[in-house]
């Protein structure tokens, strides 16, 4: 009897202690982040979390770092296995169009307060629109944005007397100027001027922007319900690229991806890169070979006024059915995005620009002051068409189309085939 009592007493003590421990335990949330500038760096993210925990010690944040090569697969697997994180950091093309539209994300409309709407809307209404679906549900709360641009080696351009084709003040050029610059570079003995990479795996915004801008084509229709690069302007742009490749003043390469192309620019093989932005400038600063003078440029267009592709990054919440965790996750998002001190610091870590106009110039007087150079492109920010349905299929079809065109395929036929396949995926 005594033994039984002792066992019961011990059990009760253990139970009460574990209940107490559970009551005092922090709410644990998980964050998965793609390498959005410094948000792919453990040290940087740990610093942000430490700042958060100084204010909210009751919430513990565990981070997993994704890369663009396998990150989507990991998320897809997690969705099917029911092991999705609480928070994910990426752009609206994934958070809103893909997972949000599939009903896997939580509506974060409550984060979009009137103040936030006004502040972010003052920067760009396109950002606000990109973060919600047609039914008005917000699946992303944005932190930062940028415009994708290209980069040239000013030294090589000067040596080839090609700077005359560039408006150095506005960092813009015309389609004709671009062609002339390529010819000048080739004539000056540069076997590789620029490379239209089409090996897939991301970075496609560069080749898209190049082909679109040459004759000011629209990538999708206004309401993002159809892909439209088979327009006269779209076909003309791709035909121009094919002609320049045939002429031998531009290279097309189906064996490399954007990362390889950037590396070839940094080591001096190519004289320009079509996949660049403020963050790429910061992360490649030390890998640029001696003698190369990086000079950011907008994509060439017929009238010299480009429409640049934007990048928006922010946070979304997976619908894991746990209200406490969702509330904790929202607290984290609000802290890192809206806090007057942490908000700008979170953006600074990305190397991009704040979506909140109230944050102002976050790079002034810092070691990343060069990033402010890229702010010159913000007025050229075009429509955020990445939210069009069927985006994943479109991306693959895009590089396959380029591969067929550069292998000698008829441009109109191949572009039509690409648009048909992409549009067919919209309904799937």
């Amino acid at each position, binding site marked *: 009897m005594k033994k039984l009592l002792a066992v019961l007493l011990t059990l009760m003590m253990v139970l009460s202690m574990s209940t107490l421990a559970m009551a005092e335990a922090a709410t644990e949330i998980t964050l998965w982040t793609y390498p959005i500038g410094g948000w792919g760096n453990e040290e940087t993210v740990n610093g942000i979390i430490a700042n958060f925990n100084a204010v909210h010690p009751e919430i513990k944040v565990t981070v997993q770092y994704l890369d663009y090569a396998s990150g989507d697969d990991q998320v897809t697997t997690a969705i099917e296995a029911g092991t999705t994180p609480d928070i994910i950091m990426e752009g609206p093309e994934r958070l809103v169009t893909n997972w949000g539209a*599939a009903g896997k994300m939580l509506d974060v409309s409550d984060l979009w307060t009137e103040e936030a709407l006004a502040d972010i809307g003052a920067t760009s209404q396109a950002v606000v629109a990109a973060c919600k679906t047609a039914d008005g549900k917000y699946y992303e709360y944005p932190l930062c944005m940028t415009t994708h641009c290209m980069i040239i080696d000013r030294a090589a351009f000067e040596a080839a007397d090609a700077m005359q084709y560039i408006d150095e003040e506005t960092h813009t050029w015309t389609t004709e100027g671009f062609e002339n610059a390529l010819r000048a570079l080739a004539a000056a003995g540069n076997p*590789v001027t620029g490379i239209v990479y089409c*090996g*897939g795996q991301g970075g496609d915004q560069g080749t898209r922007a190049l082909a679109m801008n040459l004759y000011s084509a629209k990538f999708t229709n206004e309401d993002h319900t159809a892909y439209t690069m088979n327009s006269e302007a779209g076909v003309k742009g791709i035909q121009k690229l094919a002609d320049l490749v045939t002429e031998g003043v531009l290279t097309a390469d*189906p064996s490399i991806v954007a990362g390889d192309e950037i590396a070839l620019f940094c080591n001096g093989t190519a004289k320009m890169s079509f996949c660049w932005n403020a963050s790429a400038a910061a992360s490649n600063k030390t890998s640029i070979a001696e003698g190369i003078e990086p000079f950011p440029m907008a994509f060439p267009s017929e009238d010299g006024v480009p429409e640049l592709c934007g990048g928006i990054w922010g946070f979304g919440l997976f619908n894991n059915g746990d209200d406490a965790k969702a509330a904790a996750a929202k607290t984290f998002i609000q802290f890192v995005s809206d806090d007057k001190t942490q908000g700008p610091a979170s953006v600074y870590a990305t190397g991009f620009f704040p979506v909140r106009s109230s944050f102002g110039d976050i790079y002034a007087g810092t070691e990343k002051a060069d990033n402010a150079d890229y702010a010159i492109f913000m007025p050229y920010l075009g429509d955020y068409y990445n939210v069009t349905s069927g985006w994943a299929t479109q991306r693959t079809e895009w590089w*396959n189309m380029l591969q067929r065109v550069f292998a000698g395929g008829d441009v109109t036929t191949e572009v039509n085939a690409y648009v048909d396949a992409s549009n067919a995926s919209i309904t799937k």
Partner: protein
Amino acid sequence: MQKTIDISKQLKQTRRRENIAGYLFMAPSLLFFAGFVIFPMGMCLFTSMFDYTMTNFDFVGFSNYYELFRDPTFGKSLINTIIIVVASVPTVCLFSLWVGSIIYKLKDIHTSFFRCIFYLPVVTGSVAVTVVWKWMFNPYYGLLNYVFKGLGIISTNMNWLGNMDTALWCIILILFTTSVGQPIVLYVSALSNVDHSLVEAAEVDGATNMQVFWRIKWPQIMPTTLYILVITTINSFQCFALIQLLTSGGPNYATSTIMYYIYYEAFKLSRYGYGSAMGVILAIIIALFSAVQFRLAKSDQ
């Protein structure tokens, strides 16, 4: 009489205990096999009958299979897969048999050295191997272009992985180099185990080297050959990492295989049902190939 009955009872009990122990020992691997092989196979077959995406799970019967045979990309991937198998399996087997029959006769230290050399690509991580090959095939500063230009075989740099005519053969070449290690080791071991008294007797009777090989050694290494054929065939059918890391199936599906296309449909487009249907077809094809190989090897024996 009573004693005999007791002994018989004891024997039965011992046998039962041994049986139980045997099953218990097998249980972990059986559970693992059932959980990670049988169950996924069943699930694959099951989901192949559904329009299974991130948002749907609707029964569609054999629609996925019907769509599969009308899908030109699947057709292209199937042809590429068969080219890889047909090109790599015989070359891997013949090359490893040739190398194995040369090095098994060498001194132990030399045999070990060559075994290590040929086995090195097998133990090296596929990502590392791929990165090295990617560098060799690089159209701008790759070693291959440098060597071929030096030898006068080509005049300008070739884009080996970006050319629809050469990309698949580059994949086959890499697959070959990473596949020969294990067969060579197996052949060296099998050839070392051939009954030497038979070989010596045949040589005394005046048999030529060729006759000794075909009449004495070949039948004895046939089980090893069969094993090598089957694993090389399966590995070739399942070639994926190389393609994912090097070409992403391009240019224009020139290197897309069934495995890569399954991955693309299931994980990039979230069409799990369609991907499962392809998985079922791939399993059937591999089973058919293996059955034919077994039958041929049996008739040869």
